[in-house]
């Protein structure tokens, strides 16, 4: 197993390297560029374009830009004032030495930009996922145990609807209902806030306030997951119920509870755990629509903004982190699967 993991890790490094080349090329070669105007300015003046190219390092050929992005330019001379003479050493260290560059938009280090957003996204997404799992597993089990019952049919209908309803629509409707229409009968304030993480100006940590702010975004974000996981749980449970070992368990006189939960559920959960591990990257990447609608300062919004405004360094960093988490989640899923299912062995 250890040898297997080591081999997979080595493969991962090669894969990441390859991915970084492809992503860098794709991001840079996509139509449009960071030197177009932003916001209200349609254009950047020709004088400024020259300057920005130099400050952003876009005056270098693409392969050189990649090398600088990867390994920095402190070991080479660069022209910083545009007189054509390479007079001083560069200041970039490259991502291999932890320098992800600075945002074209804010001129702040990319890691600082991401650092401000990542905790918010992990906070929202992990609670969303957790809520989804805690809802989906019982629903799935109940559905499977009472297959084709009214409950099962209702759940099936609901989960198809849940997967089909677009998040941005659902979110807006929820805001309309719980923020604009319904009022708290005691205070006259809106029943739930329209967005944000906490109430502005609140002193310290307030659990009630946190929960109020979580309800709508978690509901919006979790609906799709609940539908998806509960369907999965249902079919996985159905598979297990008809297995011989359950019959054996019943035959040896185990109670229904023990049969279903000790022998049935544990085995039915194996595929779900794998699926969960594969979905782990979402905890880091966030959900664009939920963050956008509920003014949640997270990674999804940062990514969208960076893509829209061609903020290459931010975009590249998010993409690379995203790629890495996906690769590692896959590895994690494989390892978990081997642990949970003794029949699976890696050589």
């Amino acid at each position, binding site marked *: 197993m250890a040898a297997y993991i080591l081999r997979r890790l080595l493969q991962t490094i090669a894969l990441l390297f390859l991915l970084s080349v492809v992503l860098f090329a794709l991001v840079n070669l996509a*139509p449009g560029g960071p030197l177009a105007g932003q916001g209200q300015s349609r254009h950047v003046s020709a004088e400024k374009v020259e300057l920005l190219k130099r400050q952003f390092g876009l005056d270098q050929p693409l392969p050189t830009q990649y090398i600088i992005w990867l390994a920095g330019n402190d070991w080479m001379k660069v022209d910083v004032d545009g007189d054509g003479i390479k007079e001083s050493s560069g200041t970039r260290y490259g991502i291999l030495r932890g320098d992800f560059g600075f*945002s074209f938009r804010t*001129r702040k280090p990319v890691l600082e*930009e991401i650092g*401000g957003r990542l905790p*918010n996204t992990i906070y929202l997404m992990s609670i969303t996922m957790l809520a989804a799992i805690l809802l989906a597993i019982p629903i799935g089990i109940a559905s499977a145990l009472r297959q084709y019952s009214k409950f099962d049919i209702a759940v099936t209908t609901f989960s198809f609807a849940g997967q089909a309803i677009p998040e941005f629509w659902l979110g807006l409707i929820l805001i309309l209902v719980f923020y604009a229409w319904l009022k708290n009968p005691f205070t006259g304030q809106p029943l739930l806030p329209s967005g944000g993480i906490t109430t502005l100006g609140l*002193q310290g940590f307030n659990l009630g306030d946190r929960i109020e702010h979580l309800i709508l975004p978690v509901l919006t974000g979790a609906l799709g997951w609940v539908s998806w996981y509960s369907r999965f749980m249902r079919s996985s449970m159905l598979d297990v119920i008809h297995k011989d070992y359950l019959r054996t368990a019943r035959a040896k006189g185990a109670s229904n509870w023990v049969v279903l939960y000790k022998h049935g559920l544990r085995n039915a959960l194996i595929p779900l755990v794998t699926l969960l591990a594969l979905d782990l990257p979402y*905890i880091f990447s966030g959900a664009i629509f939920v963050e956008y609608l509920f003014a949640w300062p997270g990674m999804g919004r940062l990514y969208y903004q960076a893509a829209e405004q061609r903020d290459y360094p931010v975009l590249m960093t998010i993409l690379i982190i995203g790629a890495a988490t996906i690769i590692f989640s896959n590895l994690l899923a494989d390892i978990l699967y081997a642990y949970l299912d003794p029949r699976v062995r890696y050589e």
Partner: protein
Amino acid sequence: MLETKRTLIFLLLAVTLSSSLLGCQPQSPANATAPAQTSVTIVIAEDPPSFNPVITDTGYDSLVMDLVMLGLTDIDENGNVFPELAAELPTLENGDVVQDETAGTMSVTWKMRKDAQWSDGTPVTAKDVIFTYNAILDPAKGSWIPGIDYIDSIAQVDNYTLTINYNAIFPGYLTQFGGEQVVVWPAHYCSAEQGFSAWDCAREPLSDGPYKLEEWVNGDHMTFVKNENYFDKGKPSIETIIVKIIPDAAVRKTMLLNGDADLDMWSSEQMIHDLEGAENVQVSNSPDNRWVMRIFFNLAAKGATDPVATPHPILSNVKVRQAIRMAIDVDTITKEFFYGLAKPNWTEFFRPPYVCDNVARTQFDLEGAKALLEEAGWVDQDGDGVRECHNCGTAADGYPMEMEFITYSEYGEPLELTQQFIAEQLGKIGIKLNLTVVEGSVLWATAADGGIEQNGNFDMDIWDEGYAGIDPTDYLWSYYSAEAAVPDNGYNYGRWENPEFDSLLDEAYTLDTQTRHDAFCKMATLLDEELPQALLFTAVNASVHSARLQGVKSSTNDIITWNAADWTLK
């Protein structure tokens, strides 16, 4: 084995849980003040990148900059320049501007007010202005502002007086270190080592304006409190301004209706229309709007940039351009797609201080447009509904009148409907348009980045543009001069070249406003006859605000917070 499995599942849950607790750290520092009694909330779509709009001109940076920092001057909603850090405006009349007509140079002496202070108590002096100039000028870490290349030197006369020597006549001198974008930066606080384009003081600014930044939670909100050291004692009357980042326009609208927001900048036609009649909401319209919706005609063949060697097969004939303008029903567009909030406009010179009324509006006339096309040699002989060239002189006989018509996506539905409507109307006179919608960053990218406009990869485009501030000369140069027709040199995307226009432009580089006015009005006639662009209408420039917030003045010349010091609460 069972134990291991259980442990693993627990581990997974524990990781998830602990990471959520990690995110639970309080967002705002514990010492954040409770909301003050007089507090207003501005809702905007994006975080400002910094407090320095010269670096990334998003408008959001101007919004927050205007709350905390001052330039030498600023411009009011009617286009009048007024002093901020300056004690008075330097003019030829008061002797502070000295012109050398023979050499074509000038020098400007600025006298600054002596009671302005940074929020740490340090006085704002001429040193700060010179520091700002040098920081912008730095070739490695600096930036660029209009007219900076015209400055030969800046000399400090005393603590509050400085003289700027120009190597040319620069009519925009009054707002060079002021207006919507440029402010004076504190020499004792900002780091020249970090440089103008990246310094920390653009994110943690030292204030000399009406407010100072108290807290900035990235992507969430910014809190501004009254600056006790602001020179205009007794102002501002509102103690706290909160800028909240609310990306979705529908949510911003609901917050305004619910009374949780007081001001929305750049309100869309849709928002203004939806909020009409709401009791607790008012609209502030600017007297004029800067942005003119217009069609750019490519006079060079698609994909080429030389209008002489490779003229456009259809659009290089001015009669065709006139016919297109004549076939567009602007009144219907403004009424149907812009809720009657847009105003028809047909000239660049429609707002103070340079208004030219010597150009008449072209009337919508489909028959007249058809006649013009026939005259130009475009006839539909094969009866397929699309005209083709028959002795048109610009293309081979039989060449169909079919073109690509591009717009950008960020403006949204009203513009896309306009694009479709125009295509429909031109279809009626036998011009077939194929519609494309692209991102602004693709449309306006540099030639090297594959920008559609810079590379001339279009036939006709529609989008909105207009000049900032009150001096149109640089803008006119960049859109209409022959020099600006060179890719990446300017934005003369249609490659229209006219020596008469270029010499009128030279005439306009003077301090004599009458001469300037005359030159501009001659340009207006020329642009109307030659029609390098067809100007259609100005969309709305307005902000929606709560009824309790008084004194909000939308302005074409600056962002909505330009007069925040004068706002009051009812």
